[in-house]
């Protein structure tokens, strides 16, 4: 006789138990971090207060994405030359091919001397 085998359920339950412990660890970590975050947030709120900032710096491609709260109500195609707007039409209309003197002209267009 080979001796009683390790039950599959024991293996599964201990793996799931380990995952559950990690899960609880994650909740705990989030809690600890949230406490620690107060300091970081304090320096940020000080900056927001002293400069009178109105927006988070998340998307920098255009005026209305950099400062969504400050943007004109219907802002499209007016800032970054490559900026697409957030209306559905923005996915249909391509951005200009050579938007600024610094960009290279489109190869398909005739080259001016």
């Amino acid at each position, binding site marked *: 006789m080979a001796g009683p085998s390790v039950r599959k359920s024991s293996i599964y339950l201990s793996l*799931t138990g380990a995952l559950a412990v990690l899960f609880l660890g994650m909740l705990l970590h989030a809690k600890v971090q949230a406490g620690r975050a107060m300091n970081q947030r304090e320096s940020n709120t000080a900056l927001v207060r*002293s400069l009178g900032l109105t927006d988070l710096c998340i998307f*920098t491609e255009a*005026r209305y994405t*950099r400062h969504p*709260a400050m943007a004109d109500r219907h802002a499209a195609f007016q800032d970054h030359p490559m900026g697409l707007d957030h209306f559905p039409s923005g996915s249909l209309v391509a951005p200009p091919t050579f938007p600024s003197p610094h960009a290279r002209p489109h190869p398909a267009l005739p080259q001016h001397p």
Partner: protein
Amino acid sequence: MRAPTQRYRNILDFALSSLLRRKGRNLSLTGVYTLVVFVLASLIFFVQALKREARELLVQAPDMVVQRLVAGRHDPILAAQAEAIRSIRGVLEVRPRLWGYYYDPAFGGNLTVMANEHEPIAADAVWIGQGVARNMRVNEGDLISLRAYDGLPMLFLVQKILPTESELVSSDLVLMAPRDVRSLFHFPEGLATDLAITAGNPRELPTIAAKIVERFPDARPILKAELLRTYEAVFDWRGGLMVVVLGSALLSFVIFAWDKATGLSAEERREIGILKSIGWESSDVLLLKFWEGTVVSLTAFLSGILLAYVHVFFFSARLFEHALKGWSVLFPRYRLLPALDGYQLTVLFFLTVLPYTAATLVPIWRAATVDPDAAMRT
């Protein structure tokens, strides 16, 4: 010894053996499932964390910002209007803000140039955000050159780089003395970009806004509440769009799971018949199928969530970077602070674990109530 839990464990044993028979199929199913949970959870964690930062930080934003509209567009406002607004009852402070955008042709990114009125910055010196320093490859003490309105270069000394932790609000900022902002943009004296207003009592803000519009019909007041609402909307919209995309992914997964996990084969039917004939009750068969569904979905749920947590809060949602970056050249690198809430986790749980378990159980219902003698009559 007969413990009530033994029955559950015994049947779990068999469920695992049963799953292991089709190891490849069930492992890939769990893999796909984990991926779906991972992407959904990453998205929810990410949006949730940003939303919370916006809420916590923008509480300190000005109570109201007054812009001037010319031909429907935002235009500089007369600093003299500040005096008139200050005289409105309830207004505590009016602060003209001087700021604008600068497109840097060298690296192709947009910067936000702002006058720092609170802490004096020396002439010809700047404080820059981490994103600017990274893109321009400069350190404190270096010189940077900005092209003024007339095309001539202006040189600035980088006096200070704003701390990394503040990147979420300051990544693209270039702070300088008000005089330098004016000469860079040829911004006339007596004009400001907009006015930041502090009220004594926030509840009076709508009244104050109404009075401002009455006095200056071309003014556009933006209340802090609107500003916060904009953020809620922005994340809902972005989050919302992605949830739609992911929702369809989830739906197709449910269809896939339905097909794979419940396409009750003749073989499975036969097995249920055998189990019934050797003394299993319908409830035992249902418990077996419940375990089969739970083993896959719970494993996928827990590992998907854990991976998402590590992804979003340790690796700054690296996989979303391309979607978020869009067309921006200057991309802020912020480390998000964990924001978990039980509600989100519960929603995720019900969105992912429940459909699968239900999909495995429902079609079994009929088969499980088959007569035990069915196995003998084949």
